[in-house]
């Protein structure tokens, strides 16, 4: 059985490594500041006791006040999982750092979020629309699109 790690405990470890990164940690997820996302992701991947080597799912939700990007992380080695989140409030040009250099599974998934939700992933090597065509206006999965 994949064990969902206790977010509060992992959050404590994160705060030790990069102070001020964690905004909130409840029973389901850890929310971190978007500017420290890459640092936290690197920490989660490279700390041997955590060892999150597998980014199973990456998606985004539009809550109108803010966008939330959700990372479902798994460690195949330890068989445990964690949900990491980050938020951005700017509706005109939301941006989050890319994690493609850590987990390449983020490649298509970040492009998909950019395409459908309009969130820019800084540092993505090839950020362009994935499913819709070039020249399409708007981002359909935003709640205010239709």
């Amino acid at each position, binding site marked *: 059985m994949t064990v969902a790690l206790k977010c509060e405990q992992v959050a404590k470890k994160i705060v030790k490594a990069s102070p001020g990164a964690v905004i909130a940690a409840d029973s*389901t997820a850890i929310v971190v500041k978007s500017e420290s996302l890459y640092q936290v992701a690197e920490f989660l991947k490279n700390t041997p006791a955590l060892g999150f080597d597998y980014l*199973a799912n990456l*998606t985004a*939700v539009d809550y109108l006040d803010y966008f939330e990007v*959700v990372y*479902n992380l798994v460690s195949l080695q330890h068989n445990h999982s964690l*949900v990491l989140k980050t938020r951005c409030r700017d509706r005109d040009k939301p941006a989050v750092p890319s994690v493609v250099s850590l987990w390449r599974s983020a490649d298509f998934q970040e492009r998909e979020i950019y395409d459908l939700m309009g969130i820019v992933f800084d540092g993505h090597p090839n950020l362009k629309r994935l499913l819709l065509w070039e020249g399409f206006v708007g981002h359909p*999965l935003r709640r205010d699109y239709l």
Partner: protein
Amino acid sequence: MAIRTEPFILNMGPQHPSTHGVFRMRVTLDGEVVVDLEPVIGYLHRGIEKLGETRTYTQIIPLTDRLDYVASMTNNFAYVLAVEKLAGIEIPERAEYLRIIMAETMRISSHLMAVGFFLNDLGAMMTPVLYMWREREKLLDLYEMVCGQRLTYNYMRIGGVSQDVPEEFMPAMKKWVAEMPRFIDEYDQLLAQNEILLARTKGVCILPRDTAINIAASGPVLRASGVKWDLRKADPYSIYARFDFEVPVGTVGDNYDRYWVRMQEARQSIRILEQAIAQLPEGEVCAKVPHLLRPPVGEVYGHIEAPKGELGFYLVSDNSIAPYRFHIRPPTLINLTALKDMVIGWKVADLIITFGSIDVCLGEIDR
């Protein structure tokens, strides 16, 4: 004087017999050798995630049929499990078993199709596919008995399944399960030692273990690279913990291993089916669930081991009748990330079979 050469860009697809649907790749070639590749997708995009946000939880089930249409009941299964996790619904025992029977036969059916078309891509035009489809056809007859459909079943419901199986179903299913090992032996006899198949697939287009994990490959593609990771064992859902079965794992991660793992998985599915049929209890097939389900505010990520890999559903509920966010994690889209790594330095003909060995379904990639 040296001959002046330059790389050649070839557009393969979206209308190409070997691309298993409307898939296009932009391949840069040096002579016949692949030097770069970029998948171009979206030709089958129907906006299923957006559609889902305006439909009730039950109305979404037929939409999931249209993801991986080769194994559509598995998609139903993944989706209803995620909703049940979100709403905290318990389902009757008989429904659990019926779901397992459907999911495992779907796995065999999908693998038969994958291996058949893989051989098609190798140049064994249509003959192996027909052998594989002979058995798949019998399964489709069984599904037709259960729900009247042969492709988009819409059989599972939140809380169970739409109806109990008819009287004549179980004997027919038992007969199919009893016969199937013999047919798998026959496929092995024809293929596993076949000189052409070995020459074309052994050591060809290897996906190293570390790359497979880093790109989050799943299903047979991941296991062929030597990673023992099957969600039925690693994170058991439904009642999989009750069954005794092995997880076949490849050694090298080449095209042969991806073929081999699928054939072995089909054998293991037969084992699960034998146990499930023997243990199948009597009783109700669907729990009492309100027609307009309003799950509590919250979110859930539910994932299962679909034939092609980890199929996940991420749902956010705001306590209304439709999900606030409905996201699908398609296994083959993410497995496709590995295609470029596998084929660079190999010839165009190897690219075609490697693409076949990933076993993609465009309905799921484009959504």
